[in-house]
């Protein structure tokens, strides 16, 4: 029998599993480093955004609004096709980490800011009165409390981040989606290719999403 899911197409998929394995590994690597970057940017700009200094707030707004209000595809296209014209040729791996990391950093910074603002103002003032500097008060007093609020939305961002690495398929990124496109467009066995790819993304994302839900439930109980 023939059709998009014909048996021999699955056999071909099993035979070429290494193609998908390579893509999967690249997706995991890009996701990991992009997540580290996103967390770093998120915490930094989350703290800056909740500070009283006007200039810090402006910088944060510019970052968050310019990133949140343009599509990720445009940002990645700019990094990949635009920067070389300005003399900056980033390797594709860096394009992935920077593109996706900066994008989700903006969202995480909003989650962090919300978490910080949920901590009563008096906590910071009390810390100051005990001789803490702004940054050490943040580190030891405010952020640990903000974490409880911010962690569930941040984990959801991590899930989105993994899925969004798939935009790299448009710029020959070598990750899972690209490999699936590449493999299936040559032999046109798109049925098994995209089902298998979907399952692989589920394997990556479902544990994280489940973890996020657990955190949310825990946060509700504690609140």
């Amino acid at each position, binding site marked *: 029998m*023939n059709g998009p899911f014909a048996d021999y197409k699955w056999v071909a998929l099993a035979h070429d599993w290494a193609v998908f394995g390579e893509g999967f590994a690249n997706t995991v690597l890009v996701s990991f480093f992009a997540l580290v970057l996103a967390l770093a940017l998120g915490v930094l700009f989350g703290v800056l955004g909740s500070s009283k200094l006007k200039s810090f707030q402006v910088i944060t707004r510019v970052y968050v609004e310019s990133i949140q209000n343009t599509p990720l595809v445009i940002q990645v296209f700019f990094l990949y*096709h635009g920067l070389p014209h300005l003399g900056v040729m980033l390797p594709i791996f860096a394009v992935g980490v920077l593109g996706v990391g900066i994008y989700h950093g903006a969202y995480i910074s909003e989650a962090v800011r919300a978490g910080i603002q949920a901590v009563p103002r008096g906590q910071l003032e009390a810390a100051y009165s005990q001789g803490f500097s702004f940054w050490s008060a943040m580190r030891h007093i405010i952020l640990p409390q903000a974490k409880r609020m911010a962690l569930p939305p941040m984990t959801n961002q991590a899930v989105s981040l993994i899925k969004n690495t798939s935009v790299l398929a448009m710029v020959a990124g070598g990750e899972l989606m690209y490999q699936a496109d590449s493999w299936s467009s040559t032999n046109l066995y798109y049925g098994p290719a995209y089902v298998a790819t979907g399952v692989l993304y589920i394997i990556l994302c479902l544990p994280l999403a489940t973890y996020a839900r657990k955190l949310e439930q825990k946060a509700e109980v504690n609140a």
Partner: protein
Amino acid sequence: MKRFSAFLLCIVMIVGLMVVGCGSNKPAQSAQGDVAADMKAIKDRGVLKVGVKVDVPKFGFKDPQTNKIDGLEIDIARAVAKKILGDSAKLDVQGVTAKTRGPLLDNGEIDLVIATFTITDERKQSYNFSEPYFKDGVAMMVKKSSGIQSVKDMNGKKIGVAQSATSRKALQEEADKAGVKVQFLEFGTYPEIKTALDSGRADVFSVDGSILAGYLDDSTTILNDRFAPQEYGVASKKSNTALAKTVDEVIAEMKKNGELDKLIQKWGIK
């Protein structure tokens, strides 16, 4: 445990989806028994739906000024429409890409694909192909400033190719022969490859020669080498055998009476 059962549920859903996908394919298969069910469907509809390229000048190209799609492959589609429906205007063309042309055929959204679709043995398993209406070799475009003259100069270079194109395989073989290592970057559309060539992401832009000619500009040049002649065929869904036979007849007839050569000349292809 909960997580595991959730995962199991997902797998069951996906398998279910596939069974549905297969099931919906069956009626089309049994329709094969009824001599020209596929032809009847087109006649009842009164219009032939054809997927064509919109980004390949001279073959299938959407003129940005007039918004009309025209080219050699649209003319072939007109000939098929004339044969089946008696009127070359009873034609509905829509743009397809390398990625969409297979699924669109399978789900019946279009009857035929005439879109620089290279015939390969692997693809013949999934679709019917007519006899070839055009033959072309894989060619390479480079920046004039790159100094690349042939495959021998391409050691360590990045070659931009189109997804679903057979040029990657052909070029890999050439590179192996010349003993050079090359890297491939696959893109979804031709303009994207040209963008990558312009930005320096790719050193070489390699697709079928006739397609490449449409992207030539002052800063680029097309190398003289041609590899692995590619044969373009008209594709139809595997179960639509009567339609495939009719299309084959049209192409054979056009070849015989010189109509095809005339069209190729009309469009100034080589």
